[in-house]
């Protein structure tokens, strides 16, 4: 019994494969259009991977990639057994964890709320205003944050003092305990409108008849949001979540460098900034590459497992 099932399955597979090949050959001209894309991907994404070799070598510019001596896993060992490894890893995970908890749902909620605004003009206005911070560079945006939080002439301290909530100005950015929250709120504020675009697009694709049907069934606004809109955009949400999880070892870079100072180094040093300082700035390309490779491997594993679980639970995934 089992055998027959297997064999029919095999036969099906072969059949599907032959159909595919047939299609490729019969539509040769049309299918050829994908080649430039494939070649592009191969040249710019696959050939450079050859450079990964230097993660296992003591790269010397003059000896080149092939000529440099092999050192095995030395650079990986240096990174993983660095006395600062634990701290740097903790900060990276904490910042991204917070980002996942606060920064991920925020644009979704924002998009849902925006969808409920019925005045077109006002909706556009709100959307434009919320996009704007995305186009301001982090150097400027970070400068704004620093100015607002400044203990000597910042507006926040002034407000709190005037309201009588504090008696002495607080150096917010000088306290290591605040850094994660300042950073994540800054990121949310800056990325809220931009991040919502994809969800707004997804919402606009929801079939209007479903809302009509829901209205006839007596659903209120919140119920429509919960039972119609949200499930309809779930596919997009899941895909975005998988991406976010796979990027958990990447923290933004400029924003941290801008907000970092000696007093908050304990909580503000992440993998990216640490490797920038100890690797790239010191022209230690092998070491930097090794850390990059290690991060990529973790990212791929996270991506695959997130995808696997998402498929199990929600039946939706990337592949």
């Amino acid at each position: 019994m089992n055998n027959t099932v297997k064999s029919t399955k095999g036969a099906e597979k072969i059949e599907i494969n032959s159909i595919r090949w047939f299609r490729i050959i019969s539509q040769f001209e049309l299918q050829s259009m994908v080649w430039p894309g494939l070649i592009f991907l191969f040249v710019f994404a696959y050939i450079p991977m050859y450079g990964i070799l230097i993660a296992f070598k003591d790269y010397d510019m003059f000896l080149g990639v092939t000529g440099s001596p092999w050192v095995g896993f030395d650079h990986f060992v240096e990174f993983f057994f660095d006395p600062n490894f634990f701290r740097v890893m903790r900060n990276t995970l904490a910042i991204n964890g917070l980002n996942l908890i606060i920064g991920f749902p925020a644009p979704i909620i924002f998009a849902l709320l925006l969808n409920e605004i019925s005045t077109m003009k006002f909706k556009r206005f709100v959307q434009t205003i919320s996009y704007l911070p995305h186009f301001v560079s982090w150097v400027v945006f970070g400068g704004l944050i620093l100015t607002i939080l400044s203990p000597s002439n910042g507006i926040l301290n002034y407000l709190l003092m005037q309201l009588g909530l504090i008696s002495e100005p607080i150096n917010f950015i000088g306290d290591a305990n605040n850094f994660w929250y300042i950073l994540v709120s800054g990121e949310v504020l800056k990325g809220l409108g931009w991040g919502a675009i994809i969800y707004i697009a997804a919402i606009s694709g929801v079939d209007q008849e479903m809302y009509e049907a829901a209205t006839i069934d007596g659903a209120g606004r919140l119920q429509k949001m919960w039972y119609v809109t949200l499930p309809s955009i779930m596919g997009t949400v899941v895909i975005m979540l998988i991406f976010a999880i796979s990027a958990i070892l990447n923290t933004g870079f400029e924003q941290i460098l801008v907000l970092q100072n000696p007093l908050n180094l304990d909580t503000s040093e992440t993998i990216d900034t640490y490797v920038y300082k100890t690797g790239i700035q010191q022209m230690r390309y092998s070491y930097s590459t090794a850390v990059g490779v290690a991060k990529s491997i973790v990212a791929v594993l996270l991506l695959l497992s997130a995808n696997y679980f998402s498929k199990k639970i929600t039946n939706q995934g990337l592949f």
Partner: protein
Amino acid sequence: MRKMRNLMIMLLILALFTMLMAACSGGNDNSDSMVGKNETKQEEETAGNVDTKKPIKIKWFVAADWYSKQWDAENVLVDKMVTDATGITVEFSTGNEEKLSAMIASGSIPDVVTVWNIAPQRKIMEKSGLVVPLDELIAKYTPDFKVPQSIKEWYGDENGHFYGLPNFFYAKEQMQEGIDTLATHIDMVARKDIMEQVGIRAEDFKTKQGTIDALKKVKEAGIKYNGFNIIPSYFDHHNLTEFFGASPESKDGNWQDTIRTPESLEAFKYLNQLYREGLLPQDSLTLTDEQKVEKVAAGSVFAKTGSLLKWEALYANDKNAVYVPVGPIKGDAGNEFNFTPSPLSGWMLSMIGRDSKYQDRIVQLFEYLSTDEMSLNIFYGPKGVAWDYDEDGRVKLSEQRIKDFEADPDAAKRKYGNDTFGWLLNWVPIKRTWPAPSNEFEKLQVEHDKYFEQFAYDDLAFEATTVQGGTTEAGIEAKVKDYRAKMTAKIILAKNEAEVEKLFQEMPAQEDKLGYQQLFDYKNKAFQEVKTKLGIKFAWPSNQ
């Protein structure tokens, strides 16, 4: 349908443009190679018959991506002067050090390459033979060209060759005793207007207690400037350690880290005391230099260390708000002042490529540019037009030049080309003949520099301890630096002196975990080697 048509038209226009662009650049390529061919032909014809003024074009790469210069011998006076004298037109290209690495990897570099002397690319080019030993070229083409011995020694390799000429090198044999001084960034200044207001003298800052009393006076007077409360001080650990006389060389002649010395602890304790008494704000540790300069410009800082915190902007608004030299504070041990000067070993090194056809002409160009007067010409513009010597032998800028710069500084700079070709510039003659101050601000600057330069010492041997990029030690140093930045902040903000001591004692152990010993060995080895090369036993003045 109409939309489709519009789209098609757009695409067509785009395609046309692309073709046009391609055609243009193609054309350029052709003309370039034509010129090249002609030149080689001429070269062959005149071989054996050296014409030192024949117009040639050399390619010069500068590994500094901010640099941009278009050689224009018709309109720019400095360029005209050089081209007229040597027949050479320079075609500059620039980029970062990675771009130079790519050139090295391709095995072909331009006629001249200028690179930061501590960049690893420099050593690679020397070892690979991509650049020609300058001593050999000099012996062959310009036997009268005298390069200071100290440059030859400093940049020389094991085989006795040296490969390039630096700019901003302080050659000992060119320094005139009692006239030439070393520049330094170590300083301590205070606002004169406020000092007068509350009755403080510059001498009060010569002791630790005196400084504290002075700062307290300012704080208690509750002075406001432009509506801001005056910040008593922006002092930093680095400057104070130098004031207290921390030695970078131990008594037995080994290199030592000044941050680990007793003087460093003393500086930490002092800064901590200032912080606890409200005389040093917390943000002195968190602000960047640019942000501090803003505070200085707003007029809200009374006293500060480190001359990189400029105050021109403040002076422009208020002619009374001037900073004058005070202190420096003497430490408990009463060590004499020996301040680290601005780097003496130079900045950028210019080298001649192995494949250059014009090696003879380039050495001649180097010789031409290496005179004292040429440094002045490059820096100010040609003598006679831009400047001349006054009766004291100082530089006096011409009326025309002053007028031009007042009218439009950008246009004037384009006209004179001053300070745009300083790759072989020697600062010693420029400093020696510095124009007499023409306004109050310049006068103050001169007085300030003179005051602190008397303490600067020849630290050449210590400059050899700079770690080469790309090495493991460079990584360790970055980690140690990062850790020290964090600890410095923590120590200065400590609750009491006992905690300062405790945190200070913790540092070495943690640094050892980061691999400090390896870094130390690297630096000490370089230090010992260079001392042998320089023929000295001790490098620190108090040890000598």
